[in-house]
């Protein structure tokens, strides 16, 4: 697979570590969120969707950043790559 790293461009999958689903944890320190049930849902209940899935990859042999990607689990087509912390494509902001 060619993984579209927002920082490094399309790169071979061998450069990456897979980081699982892009599931957000309940927020820390908020008692309402931080119950066993909400954490159970967040940690153990996964969609395993046929089609678009949001997932994380770590660009080990590259920028060493975590990136979020949308991958079609059937065709392996990637859409919507974003850096983890900006939530937007770094190239886009540069292009302005």
């Amino acid at each position, binding site marked *: *697979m*060619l993984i579209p790293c927002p920082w490094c461009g399309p790169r071979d999958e061998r450069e990456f*570590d897979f*980081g699982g689903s*892009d599931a*957000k*944890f*309940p927020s*820390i*320190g*908020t*008692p309402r969120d*931080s*119950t*066993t049930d*909400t*954490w*159970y849902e*967040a*940690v*153990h209940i996964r969609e395993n969707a046929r089609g678009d899935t949001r997932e*994380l990859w*770590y660009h080990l042999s590259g920028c*060493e*950043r*975590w990136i*979020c990607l949308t991958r079609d689990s*059937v*065709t*392996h087509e990637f859409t919507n790559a974003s850096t*983890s*912390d*900006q*939530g937007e494509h770094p190239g886009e902001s540069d292009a302005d």
Partner: protein
Amino acid sequence: MQTNRIQSSGFGNAIDRSRPLTFTFDGRKLTGYSGDTVASALLANNIHLVGRSIKFHRPRGILSCGVEEPSAIVRCTAPGLNPVPNLKATEVLLSEGLIVESQNSWPTRNFDVFGLLSFGPRFLQAGFYYKTFLWPHFGWHRFYEKVIRNFAGLGRIRTEIPGTGGYPTNMDQRNKFCQVLVIGSGPAGMNAALVCARKGARVVLVEQEPTFGGSLLWRKQAIGNITADRWISDALDELSQYPHVTQLPRTQAFGHYDHGMVLAYQSGEWPDSGIFWKIHAERILLASGAIERPLVFPNNDRPGIMLAGAVRKYLNRYAVRPGRRAFIAVADDNERKATISDCVAANIEIAACLEHGQQIVDTNGRRRVRSVSVKTAENKIIKHNCDLVCVSGGWTPTVHLAAHLQGNLQFDNEVQTFIAPEHRGPLLSVGASRGIFNLESILSNSEYQAHKAMTQIGLSGECGSNQTAKVENPIDRPDLPAGSNYRAFVDFQNDVTAADLVQTVSEGYRDIELVKRYTATGMGTDQGKTSWTNAIDQVAAATGEPPEQLAHTTFRPPYSPIPFAGIAAARTGEQMKPIRRTPTHRVFEQMGCVFQKSGDWLYSRYFPQIDESLEQAVAREVQAVRTGVGFVDMSTLGKFEVRGQDAENFLSRVYCNNVSGLPIGKIRYGLMLREDGIVFDDGVVARLGDEHYIVTATTANSHAVWLWLTKLAQIQWPALDVTLTNVSENWASIAIAGPRSREILGRLGLDIDSSQLDFPFAAVREGRLQGDASCRIFSVSYSGELCFEVNIPAGYTSGFVERLLEIGADFGITPYGLEALDVLRIEKGHLTVGREIDGRTTPGDLGLAKMVSNNKDFIGRALLRRPGLQSDDRLQLVGLTAADGVSEIPIGGVLAESSLTQSSRQEVNGYLTAAVFSPTVGKSIALALLRNGHRRDGEELWAVSPVAGASTKVKVGTTCFYDASGDRFNA
């Protein structure tokens, strides 16, 4: 004497008659020419019988002239190399001195004992093994297997030459990037490559054979008024002029993967070189052509029965006349005419042709076909004497690569087989591989598809009109005669007959994938290239379903076998998995250190003195640390700097114990949980500045903890102001441990005060070493003794260790390794990842429940509360000592209520995580995870090792065997 070689120079455009070669086949010395394959050279020497079939040991010859060959499987070697089994004689290029041997025959190819299997009634029918060797249940392993292995299986791996020396090793792996990859260089591929190259596209053209041109090389059809040979050489000349075109001959594209990646293997000089290509293409034009299908009739497997196209190829390409008198059974009218014309031109007498409405009912000839019996439309049987039968049931498009990525093929009624549908990916099928067989149509189709690819990647293309699959004359394949056709072979390599398929369907295996697995149809080195369409037809007939209703079996890479050595290429040994060495490695080596592998690392194990055993060395090293001073390499620990306004908040969320409010210059032990509440890792948290921390991770988890921390910081809590830096490799870490370590520290020339008040336990100091190298010193202890972990820039390590030895000489400073480190930590009951922290234990299980903070939220808190993780009935960490104080506790034992017995099964209540003889305590001690262990203090039970055949009575106690109050590291 090459009796079958045609002397006229009008034949044989593949061979170079000026370069004769010698080779041997089953010990017989033969000759051929440069350019020959083993198959063409054998046929030139009038050898048809090449080997025996896998199941019935029937004589088998050469069916085809290429990658699809199911029957002519040989073992080849060159002097000084190990033989390589299961090679297709039709693929191996002849080389000087090549040693070729037949397979599956015993004692000889001409007389095979097991060949008797093919006589008599049906013996090895489909599912034979499954049905026959069920009883008694132990029989398979005890005796059936041993007998069957002798005459089953394909080929033998032999290693006359030991080591890897006798195997092909000269393999390379390369990447190639292009805009258009063209697979196949027949008329479709060559024309498509020309169109793309003229548009300026970066093109890679791969061809599995040594010569470009594909079917044009032997079909000899003129293109317009230009001969085929001329057209090919003009095209190659033009392509060679373009610097952006790469031609790869002898390269087989064997797998199509995501995002336009195609893997290809280019064979070099047989057998010891090759290149494994990873070709990344924006568009792939699949012009892989078609493979001829044989006809299914009784005894259709005799040597001398060959595919019509293969016969033409042997005549025209290799100037080899495979027979003198041929019977022609070709379903397609045009193909039949062309076959007859080529045979006649090569002086092959035509015995007869199979006409429409006729059936072949039998053939004769033990080691070579002698005659064909034909039933006419009037039900008359006519016997034709011949020594060659040219068969063809039409051509099957080579669709494999189009189907590798879940591309389901569709049945095309016109071509009467499966072809690739229009793909939405980067692959476009061109020419015969999409069912177009007419040369003019192939050329116009390849132009259209090439323009389409150009347009898709943004190079202007002028799309003309498309050409869809067209067959000029519907193919009229002769029917199988009625009756049980248990010698009418569908799959030659696996000896699957038409009768087997009928029987399989009648036993209920109707799905084509099940049929494949029950009968082995389509398995083996040829992967059913000549059999899969015939098999579908037979199954369709047996089930009564039309073939378009049947699916096909899944096509997977590789298209054809490729050497494992090519996949591995240079990535062997350390190039596959490099060994990591710590900064101390060189100086430790000089000190006579014995190293051991630990994960990726080569780690110092112990430092033996002359004539000292491992046990003696470890006891000495342990004693030095307990009574004097020693030092150990801790450089493999993960070391991560954490900076930023929210660094404290971040760490507070990550560790389950309280780490906030840590004063600058102080250290705290940190326990990290996974989000499900299980212990992940432990280490220390040291505060270096206001917004500056450094944390450590265990060696084994170093990378995992780094990924975890960065993921939390970047993904889960991007709003936190925290910056992580991995400095694991920047700092070497030497722990100086023992009651006299403070004295050593005082003499190192540090610009920090090392007196107790200024450097208490659990503190960190930054300074310089002799006014030069910066250093960080952590007073933490894994050994239980007073200990200072000195971090220095990795490049200074050797000098530092040498200085340490010099300063410490008066104190008897003793380097120690992993073995002594382990003894020391077991004596203190300290934890190790992989032993006690094994991915199943909670803080409570490890006796650390009190560490878990109740005053804050952290990763793992919520799910740690689950009742299952809080239950008393869990395995809990305890310390064990031998009850009699003398016996040795067996390593790797389990815990039971009674000693090891021969007869009874024991209930196991836990297992040992570590067991060692403690020189300090003077007896065997162990750590163990014991069910409900924390409430079993003082109880006695048995540590049992069925593997070692030993059991020892042990007493349950605390995990700390030494200095439970911790006075020693506060000294």
